[in-house]
């Protein structure tokens, strides 16, 4: 069995796992600038390493209920691949730990961690309109 490291995060009552290799930094208390007129799913804009960073609500991207408050933690993550790769912020409630998941979990989109269901996020496809 092939395993890969994933960052386990909490989204309200749900758990999700992001490929650890796509994660650049976990930031608590990011200074967010809300943007009037922005689409659902954009929490706001921030500055990261001297560059503008769009911060998206991971729960909303995964089709879960939108939040009413700003997410306290931002996971700065690479989305896409190759020339299409870009750095975005993903707002979550909590970064829990790095765990190892079966590589097949990514294809399935889900896994079990400690008996709890976890949404396994495909960062190459996340945010692309179906």
């Amino acid at each position, binding site marked *: 069995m092939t395993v890969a490291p994933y960052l386990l995060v909490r989204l309200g009552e749900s758990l999700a796992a992001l490929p650890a290799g796509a994660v650049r930094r976990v930031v608590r208390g990011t200074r967010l600038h809300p943007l009037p007129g*922005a689409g659902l799913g954009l929490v706001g804009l921030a500055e990261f390493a001297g560059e503008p960073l769009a911060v998206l609500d991971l729960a909303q991207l995964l089709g879960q209920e939108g939040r009413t408050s700003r997410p306290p933690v931002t996971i700065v993550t690479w989305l896409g691949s190759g020339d299409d790769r870009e750095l*975005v912020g993903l707002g979550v409630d909590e970064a829990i730990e790095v765990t190892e998941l079966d590589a097949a979990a990514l294809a399935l989109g889900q896994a079990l961690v400690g008996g709890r269901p976890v949404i396994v996020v495909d960062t190459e496809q996340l945010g692309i*309109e179906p």
Partner: protein
Amino acid sequence: MIGGFLIVRRAGALWGLPAERVSTIERVVQEGQGGAPGAPASNAPGLELHLAGGGRLTVDAVLTVAGNLRIHPLSGRLRRFLPAGAAGLALLAGEPLVLMAPEGEIPHA
């Protein structure tokens, strides 16, 4: 005005308008704004931009004209999250801002 982006604050966010779109900047009074919740309305000063080709836009402040912003074009992934007419993102003094395309409209709060 000449090239670059006119950087304005509107509804708490920073926006960059192509400077050639702006023909005049006029100080105006925005009736019924500026008071604390529950307090009587006051007449807060604001600025009105007269746009070349018609149209006006009220903003809270005009900050500067920036001619050498490092522009990050919007990807297809991010475009749907940003207001229509947004062309890219940039930073000004560490604060992120949205650059509007020449035909773009800054949304209301």
